[in-house]
C-alpha cells in the first residue's frame, strides 16, 4: 500500500509555491440534533490548489465540505458553529445571501445528478438563474466554454439537445462539473466525485480536476488514497469528527506525524 502511494506521488504534480488562503475555517462544529458530527475543525484552504479531505466513513469530512457552501442549511436538524471565511467574509453572516454564496462556491456530488433536461439546458440553468448571459449568444458562449473546460465538448457538441441523463456515468459527472463551472464559481467542492465511476472515467475526471486547479480552488472528499495522492496538493485527515492532521500531500503520504493518519493510509483501519 505504502509503496503504491509513494509511486503515485512521484508521478503526481509537484507541490507549488505557497498560495494565498481562499477559505479559512476556525473551530467549525456541527451538531445533528444531539449528536456532534464535527468537533471544532480549523483548516485553511489555499487558493488554486486541490485540497483533499480523507478519512474513514463517518469521520465528518462530507459534513465539513457541506458547511463550506451552507448545504447543511437544507438539513433541518443540522446546527453549525465556529467561523467560516471566504476571502475574509463570514459565510454564516446573516447578511450573506446563501444564493450568492452557492454561486461562488459550487458543488459536485457523489452520484452524477444531471437534471432530466437536455445537455445544453443542464449547463445553461445556472447562468440563466443568475442572469450571467444577456443574450442567446452569450449563453451559448458560456455553455460551450464550460463544456470545453469540463473536457466534454468534443463528445457531445453535436447532441446538445439530447437529455443529459442519456450520457454515460463519467460523462454525466463531467456534465455536472461543467454545470458547476458555468456559474463561474471561485471554489468547487467535490464530494467523492468518482466513487460511482469506473477506473477509466475516474482517470478522465482526475485529469480534469488537475486542469481546473489553474482557475478554481478545489476541495475534494475522497475515499481513495491514491486519488488524494494523485490530484491534491494539500491533504487533511479527518477522524471521528476531528481534524487529525493536515499537511502537504507529499508529506502526508510519506511521513505523516499523526499515528491515526499513518494507520489509515497504510490500511490498518478505515
Amino acid at each position, binding site marked *: 500500500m505504502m509503496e503504491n502511494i509513494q509511486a503515485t506521488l512521484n508521478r503526481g504534480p509537484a507541490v507549488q509555491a505557497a498560495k494565498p488562503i481562499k477559505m479559512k475555517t476556525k473551530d467549525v462544529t456541527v451538531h445533528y440534533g444531539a449528536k456532534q458530527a464535527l468537533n471544532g475543525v480549523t483548516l485553511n484552504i489555499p487558493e488554486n490548489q486541490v485540497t483533499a479531505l480523507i478519512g474513514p466513513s463517518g469521520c465528518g469530512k462530507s459534513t465539513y465540505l457541506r458547511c463550506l*457552501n451552507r*448545504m447543511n442549511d*437544507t438539513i*433541518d436538524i443540522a446546527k453549525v458553529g465556529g467561523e467560516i471565511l471566504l476571502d475574509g467574509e463570514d459565510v454564516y453572516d446573516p447578511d450573506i445571501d446563501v*444564493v*450568492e*454564496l*452557492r*454561486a461562488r462556491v*459550487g*458543488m*459536485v*456530488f457523489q*452520484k452524477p*445528478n*444531471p*437534471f*432530466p433536461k437536455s445537455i445544453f439546458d443542464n449547463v445553461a*440553468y*445556472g447562468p440563466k*438563474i*443568475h442572469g450571467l448571459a444577456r443574450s442567446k449568444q452569450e449563453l451559448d458562449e458560456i455553455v460551450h466554454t464550460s463544456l470545453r473546460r469540463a473536457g466534454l465538448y468534443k463528445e457531445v457538441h453535436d447532441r446538445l439537445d439530447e437529455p443529459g*441523463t442519456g450520457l454515460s456515468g463519467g460523462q454525466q459527472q463531467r456534465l*455536472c462539473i461543467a*454545470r*458547476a463551472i458555468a*456559474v463561474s464559481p471561485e471554489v468547487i467542492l467535490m464530494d467523492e466525485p468518482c466513487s460511482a465511476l469506473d477506473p477509466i472515467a475516474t482517470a478522465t475526471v482526475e485529469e480534469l480536476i488537475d486542469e481546473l486547479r489553474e482557475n478554481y480552488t478545489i476541495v475534494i472528499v475522497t475515499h481513495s488514497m491514491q486519488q488524494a495522492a494523485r490530484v491534491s496538493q494539500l491533504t487533511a485527515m479527518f477522524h471521528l469528527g476531528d481534524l487529525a492532521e493536515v499537511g502537504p500531500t507529499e508529506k502526508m503520504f510519506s511521513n505523516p506525524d499523526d499515528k491515526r493518519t499513518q494507520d489509515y493510509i497504510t490500511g490498518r483501519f478505515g
Partner: protein
Amino acid sequence: MSDATANGIAATAAERKPRRDIGIGRRYAAERRFKAYGIIAIAIGLAFLVMLLTSIISKGYTAFWQTEIKVPITFTEKVLGTPEQAVKSQTKLLMANYPQLARDGLVQLLGISADDKKAVSAANGLISSGTRVTLRDMVMNDLSIIGTTEDVWLYASSELDSAMKGQYDLSVPENRRPISDLQLEYIDKLKSQGAIEERFNWGLFTFGASSRAETAGLGVAIIGSFYMMLIVLALALPIGVAASIYLEEFAPKNKFTDLIEVNINNLAAVPSIVFGLLGLAVFINWFGLPRSAPLVGGLVLTLMTLPTIIIATRAALRAVPPSIRWAALGLGASRTQTIFHHVLPLAAPGILTGTIIGLAQALGETAPLLLIGMVAFVADYPATPMEPATALPVQIYMWANEAERAFVERTSGAIIILLAFLAIMNLTAIFLRRRFERRW
C-alpha cells in the same frame, strides 16, 4: 498412512457439510400455495367485475335505442290557426292541441275510423305525449309549414318501446299487461308499412328530467356534473398543490404541522355525507348560496377531493430524488426556484394522476349532493352554475326509484354512461403519466 488420514479428514468434512436441502420441498410448496391464493383472489375479483358489467350492460344497452314512428302529420289551420294570426300572437301556437295532430295522423296511417273511440284511444297510447314539444318546435321554427302535410318521426310511448324490445311477457292475460292485443295488432301493421323503427336515442344525452321515460334524459345531469368538475378542478388543484408544496418543502416540522398532517389524512376518510351536511350548513344556510346549484355541489366536492389531491401531491413531491434538489441548490437556485423549475415538473405526472383520480371520485359521489338539494326534478338546462341542476349519479339514483320498465333500462344505461366517463378519466390519467413521466 498419510493417505488414510487425508481420507479420514475428507470423510468428516463430508459429514459436517451443512445440509441445505432441509425443508426445501416445503418452502417451494409454500410458495406455490401462496401463488395459488393470489390467483384465486384475482379470479374472484374478476368474476365479480364480469358479473357486474354483464348485468349492467345486458340491462342497459337497449336504453341507447328508442322506438320511433313515422307519422304523416297535417298541420291544419283548424288546430293551429293561420300563419297571419301566429305572427300577431303566439299564444294560440303555444297552446295548440299538438297531440291531436299526432293522433289524427296515426289514425289515418292505421286506417281507423275516427268514430271508433276505443281504437283511437289504443292508437293514441302508442305515441308519446312528449310529441307536443317536437311538433310545436317544428311549427314555431317554420310557420310556412302550416297547412302542409309532412312525415315526422315521433317518439313512441314507453309501453310500445318496451314491447318492441321484447321486455313484456305477452303470454299473460291482456288486462294484466301494459299493452293490449289491439295495440300489438297495430304494431304489426306499422311494422309491415315500415313506419316503425328503433333509432339511436340521442334524447338520452340531451333531455332533462321527465316523468315520461321516452323523453327523460341525462342532459341536465351531464351539464351539472360538468360544471361541478370544472369548479373542483379550478379550486382543488391549485389549493391542494399549494398546500402540499408548503407542507412538504417549507413548513417547519413541529406539533402544529403534525396536527395538520394528521387531520388531512383523517379528512380523506370522512364519510362523504358529512361533507354534504357541512355544505348545507355553511354554503347554503350561512353564505346563502342557492340550493340545488352546481356551484354548491362543486364547493362540497372540492372539500372532499382536497385531501386526496394533497396526499397524492405530497407523495409525488417526496418521490423526486433529493439529488435533484441538491443539484439545483448547489448551483445557487433559491428554494422556490428549485421547487418550480425542477421538483414540480418531475412531480407533475403524479400530481395529475392524483387529481384525476380525485375528480373521478367526485364525479361518482352522490350522498353529499342529496343533502344540498341536487336531487331535484330539473327539466331545463342550467345556464350558469348558480341555477338548479342534477348530477349523473343523482340522476341514476332518481331513475332507480321509478317503477316503469323503461326507466329500469335507462338506469342501467345511465350507469354505463357514468362508467364510460370514469373510464375515460382514468385512461387520461394513465396516458398523462406515460406521456410526462421522465426518468432520472
